[in-house]
């Protein structure tokens, strides 16, 4: 198969004229800060600090202590914080893109832990505070491509998933990793029927160990907003977005390919691998192009890159595989 040489990691194929100007998202964010301040007045003085601080820290690059990463995608302006937090697929909180922002407030992000089990020599439970301190938190901007045909550029915060996996010491029998998301019918009463909750996703071991696979705890230098999968999720920039499980509570190391939610739902539409692939159409639409969120309608469409442009890092894992069959 012909694999397009990606313009990695600069993403230079996107002309700068098509990029959201920085002032624009900054403006939106100052608007958000303004509304937060207004809300604070309404809530009363004792809560002002709590309400203002999230937006304030978002404006002043962060509550989380972060370091720069060599694995960051440069040359593309990030999608605005407003769009990243108001255009979400998080079906447990409703199927409309605007639902998670409205409904995810009840997600109990503290206390939180991830239980690691299965084929590992050191099964253990990580507390979220422990996860936040395990390794230096890196600012990593990645392109994010949804299987539905839209895309964003998102400045995540986290470190490589492999760092956590190494601490658990998987046995040679472990061939796959399964991620299970938080699920509570009471908290997530919007979850549609007919799905196997909790949300389950999985990766092959080598995919999980790839440095690009990001254990993600933040966004725009701040903690993850609930609707984006707080408090901890994975981000796999070369795969369609649904592979990147949110609000993870369990990681299991297994010897067989684990069941994954969307693959169970419609195996002909969503494969286990789900690598971004412009040459493999979704049955209902082409994947050759994508709509960049936040851009005007006449300039929204861009070509989709093989492996979402991350081929230099990940293509070798799929050598000899027919990616149209193993989609």
């Amino acid at each position: 198969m012909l694999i397009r040489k990606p313009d990695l990691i600069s993403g230079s194929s996107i002309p700068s004229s098509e990029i959201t100007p920085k002032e624009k998202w900054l403006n939106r964010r100052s608007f958000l800060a303004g509304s937060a301040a207004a809300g604070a007045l309404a809530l009363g003085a004792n809560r002002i600090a709590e309400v203002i601080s999230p937006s304030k820290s978002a404006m002043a690059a962060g509550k989380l202590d972060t370091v720069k990463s060599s694995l960051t995608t440069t040359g593309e302006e990030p999608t605005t914080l407003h769009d990243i937090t108001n255009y979400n697929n998080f079906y447990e909180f409703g199927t409309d893109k605007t639902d998670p922002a409205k409904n995810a407030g009840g997600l109990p992000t503290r206390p939180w832990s991830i239980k690691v089990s299965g084929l590992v020599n050191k099964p253990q439970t990580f507390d979220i505070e422990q996860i936040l301190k395990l390794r230096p938190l890196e600012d990593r901007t990645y392109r994010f491509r949804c299987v539905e045909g839209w895309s964003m550029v998102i400045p995540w915060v986290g470190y490589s998933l492999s760092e956590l996996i190494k601490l658990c010491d998987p046995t040679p029998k472990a061939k796959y990793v399964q991620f299970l998301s938080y699920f509570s019918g009471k908290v997530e009463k919007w979850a549609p029927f007919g799905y196997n909750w909790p949300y389950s996703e999985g990766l092959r071991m080598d995919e999980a160990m790839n440095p690009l696979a990001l254990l993600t705890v933040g966004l725009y230098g701040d903690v993850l907003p609930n609707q984006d999968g707080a408090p901890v999720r994975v981000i796999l920039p070369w795969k369609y977005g649904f592979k990147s499980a949110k609000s993870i509570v369990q990681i299991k190391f297994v010897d067989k390919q684990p069941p994954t939610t969307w693959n169970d739902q419609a195996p002909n539409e969503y494969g286990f691998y789900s690598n971004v692939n412009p040459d493999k159409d979704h049955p209902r639409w082409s994947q050759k192009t994508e709509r960049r969120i936040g851009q005007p309608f006449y300039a929204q469409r861009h070509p989709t890159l093989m492996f979402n442009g991350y081929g230099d890092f990940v293509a070798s894992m799929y050598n000899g595989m027919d990616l149209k069959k193993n989609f």
Partner: protein
Amino acid sequence: MNKTTLIILKTLVWIACLYPVAVLVYGAVTNDLGPDPTKTITFSTGLSALRLLIISLAITPLRKLWSRLSWLIKFRRLLGLFAFFYASLHLLTYMGLYSYWDPHVMVQDVLKRRFITAGVAAWLLLVPLALTSTTASIRRLGGKRWQQLHKLVYLSVCLGLLHYWWQVKSGVTTPLGLTVVMAVLFIARPVLDWWKARKAAKPSPA
């Protein structure tokens, strides 16, 4: 109904029918069509077309139910033509913002993707109806043949809803509301006819 009331009502219907496209134009000018403008335009035009078609289909049953509402017929052509207007905008949105005017892509989509096939068929069925919407056409075709031709609207609205159902992800039920309304309207016609026939057949008390 007197002339002034009719003019006022027609003006209100025009305003209501133009509202969705006005919102889109305003959003386009102020660059405020939401995070995914292409999708906003697609969804708004498609939904408006289906809604207007279904409203236009409600007129006959309503008139049969309450003879006092018979004046509603004066609005059916307007609603139908606006439905066609939005369906055409919806199609143009697909052609311009999805296929980028590439005829090869369009042909492939129509052949390969059943929701697009259904949508294009629904629009094609509306074309002869829009073309024969004038009073002169009714006269030329004759009332009966015109009515038979315009029964195509039922097929078109069914295909339109199928297009909607096939487009959403499995488990998503947003097209349900419109589907239920349409089903009620479909059942209403024979039921109302039967009811009227029964009433007429009853011997009047002498």
